[in-house]
């Protein structure tokens, strides 16, 4: 019998967000975990300035230390936003014209974190090509990336979340004093500490814990280095974080929960990504290396069940797909549980939670399921009748 052709998977990663490097780590982990007998991988690296490249070198971690100068060793590629091309077009050295050859792709895994990759942008582009892709669609990605919109939407679906104020960069530039005074007059925001964070970013970049009014303006200015909208939230002083992963495969399923252990009260970018399991040196393993307690046995079952129920509901009402991670916080003083944020494509695909869940799901299986779901979703969309609107001009 002739050998079955392997499915050609393009892993898209890197990208134009501040979480560029984390995406590289996630993608390298994916490339190692994916079943090579079933899938043929084409790595597609998007550089911080937005050019797309492919090449064998992208499988090697050491290569990224030589970026950007080593990018000239790679083949520049792109995606045409039209159906029927069924792959990546290769570009000439000028990066503007096509060579005429196509690298065939059956399915795309967008392995980005943050802006342009996890917020619906790339999903929209892929949607135009009709190539199946893993993870959440345009709307779910866009809504979950905007912390404010996501919160308000989930509150509407009876999922509890902390109150939040939205401050626009332009308003702050015009009169930051007035904005600061307005914040401190709002109900629930009259006392400090407060959290100030970017509305559309993950990874703790730009986050400040403000303990007195004089720090509010610099904290907002810090957010506006990275984002056009800042979110102000009350600070839960006795806090416990609970994260859980949810995925779609033969129904919506939740993983075991985890409690990240923070040393400073707020998980900093360094703590999330650079600490490497407590060691200061060595390779970063991204989210897989964070100090954490997975499936804590002494956690109140009622609380755990509430987290899982809220998480599954949120995943469903937002229309997410693939694997997501939802972060909750517990106010230890009152026992209240709040939804904090949803990562439509979490670091390390949250595989470290799924390998501890019952039934156990290996990283390899997780990816396989994601690809299967992507294919199925594309099939459903393809079967929709679209000819109906093409009669008016006839």
């Amino acid at each position, binding site marked *: 019998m002739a050998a079955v052709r392997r499915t050609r998977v393009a892993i898209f990663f890197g990208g134009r967000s501040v979480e560029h490097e984390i995406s590289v780590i996630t993608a390298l982990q994916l490339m190692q975990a994916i079943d090579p007998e079933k899938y043929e991988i084409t790595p597609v690296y998007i550089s911080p300035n937005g050019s797309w490249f492919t090449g064998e070198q992208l499988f090697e971690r050491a290569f990224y230390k030589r970026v950007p100068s080593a990018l000239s060793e790679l083949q520049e590629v792109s995606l045409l936003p039209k159906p029927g091309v069924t792959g990546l077009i290769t570009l000439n050295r000028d990066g503007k014209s096509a060579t005429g050859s196509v690298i065939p792709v059956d399915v795309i895994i967008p392995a980005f974190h943050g802006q342009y990759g996890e917020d619906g942008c790339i999903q929209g582009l892929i949607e135009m090509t009709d190539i199946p892709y893993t993870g959440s669609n345009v709307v779910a990605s866009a809504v979950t990336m905007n912390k404010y919109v996501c919160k308000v939407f989930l509150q509407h679906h009876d999922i509890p979340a902390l109150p939040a104020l939205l401050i626009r960069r332009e308003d*702050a*530039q*015009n*009169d*930051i*004093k007035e904005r600061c005074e307005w914040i401190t007059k709002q109900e629930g925001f009259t006392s400090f500490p407060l959290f100030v964070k970017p509305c559309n970013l993950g990874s703790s970049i730009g986050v400040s814990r403000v303990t007195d009014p*004089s720090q509010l*303006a*610099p904290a*907002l*200015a*810090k957010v*506006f*280095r990275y984002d056009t909208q800042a979110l102000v939230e009350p600070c839960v002083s006795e806090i416990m974080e609970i994260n859980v992963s949810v995925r779609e495969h033969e129904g919506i399923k939740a993983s075991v929960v985890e409690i990240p252990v923070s040393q400073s009260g707020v998980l900093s970018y360094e703590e999330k990504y650079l600490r490497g399991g407590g060691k200061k040196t060595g390779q970063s393993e991204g989210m897989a290396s964070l100090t954490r307690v997975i499936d804590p046995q002494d956690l109140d079952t009622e609380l755990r069940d509430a987290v899982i129920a809220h998480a599954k509901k949120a995943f469903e009402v937002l229309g997410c797909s693939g694997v997501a991670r939802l972060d909750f916080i517990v106010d230890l003083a009152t026992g209240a549980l709040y939804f904090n944020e949803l990562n439509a494509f979490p670091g390390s695909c949250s595989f470290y939670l799924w390998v501890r869940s019952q039934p156990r799901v290996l990283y390899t299986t997780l990816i396989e399921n994601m690809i299967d779901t992507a294919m199925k979703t594309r099939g459903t969309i393809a079967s929709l009748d679209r000819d109906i609107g093409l009669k008016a001009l006839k």
Partner: protein
Amino acid sequence: MALKASLLFLCIGTILFAYRRNLSYLRYFQQEEYNNKRFWDWLRTNRASDTRGTAIFAFVILTASLSLPNIVIAISSTLALGTLVITAYYLEGDPRSTGKIKLNMTERATKTSWVSLGLLILISAVPLTWLCCPCGTTNATIIKTAIVGIIVAQATPFALMLAALALSPAEKRLQEHYLGEAKQIFKDVAPFTIGITGSYGKTGAKAALGDLLNQTLGPTFWPKKSINTVMGITRTIRELMKPTHKYAVIEMGAYNIGSIKRLCDFTPPRAALVTAVGIMHLERFGSPENVYKAKSEIAQAVAADGILVCNGDSPNARRMAKEHAKKTTLLYGFDLSAGPLDAFASDISFDEKGTSFTIHWNGERYPGQTPLLGRPALLNALGAFTMACALGAKPAFAVACLGNLPPVDNRLVLDKTSTVSYLRDAYNSNPTGFDAALEVLRALPAERRIVITPGMIELGDQQFEQNKNLARVAAGSCELFFLVGHTNREAILAGLREAQFPATKIIMSDTRDEAFMLLGEHQRKGDLILIENDLGDLHEGKVRF
């Protein structure tokens, strides 16, 4: 046959060594901006010609000429020599990844390297033909090979200079082409341009102003680090300038009279910020008046309806504001005694988080803080604040943005380890900067304070006096003093002695590496170590090849 094989081994070793050595010299040649005169001066003053390779080959010549011809000895000694040369190749280290300022393999560097290697082959071709001639004993062959080795080792820096000379017409054409391209891009983007110059502080002020404008008024272009020459700016414009850039902040270095004018013609400024007019690089200009003239070119280039912002604490910058007044002329500083200031800072204090201050502007007080340490950094921030506000930024938001200014490499940066803390003020030091670093050293909490420095350079006839003065201040700021090198040894010792700093607490060393080794032996938990003026490779003193 066996002898030929061993000679081949030696040749390969010599070629490897020549290649690596070529790159080692190229690193310094690059730091001297491929300028033959400056490189030659550096070679001479440092006596940086080859010794290692020459010593190996000379030893071989000596042995071969003294011993009787014997094929076994000849082969084994040739092999040993080859091994030695290859070891020397490894010991040399790769200049692309080692050293304080690494060799950057730009297109120009690659070209220079290959052309000079080609020249080296030509240079050694004559003795090589002589070598190939079959006459002579085995010993004579070895001696000839060693002579070629010496020629290659000694000729390497000259081959680089010849290569630069050979490449210069093509290089000039290429540069002109790039310059034309950059000019066109700049013209098309047409950003509102702010030129910055000053005897010191211009790089810090540029970083602060670029960042501040980017946060407050719109997308801003500014060449990073201390890029301040036409070629450096050309390259950055070609690579990084975008049509969206609304503002451009250009640092303009004064290397001689006319160099700022040339930069102003290239990127015409509509506003200028002058950080200080002092006595730095006095040797290049001859007199303080010439320094003033050179810096004034920037104020002349700004049209009468433009903006001129000057550091009011610097008498000559203040004078420039007076002599070249524009529609908007503003002064900033700390010291109100020299005359009125449009923006000034008071209530200045330092801690491990940075510098706290209150800025006074238009009759309002704006308290704030910045993660940058020291008065020079605050002065730069204040200059940037003044310019940004003159351009229309809201002062309260601008002050909030100062709270997030990114650190400037090696300019009084606090670097904490689990045991000791370092205050790195490694960039080319000046009296004001040194004094400010000592002020921060005294202000930060520490069990014990240490200063490690070679002193300051390029201060003309004031060099002795200035180093002596600062040594006196340092004596009252630290408990242990590491004195690096010989350039300022007498001056610093005189200052320390005058302040009755205990001689047992002064640790002298010939080189930076030695000083840091000694520091490692002496330091203990809780130490705060000020590394002042960690000079570049060129001034580090002894280099051995």
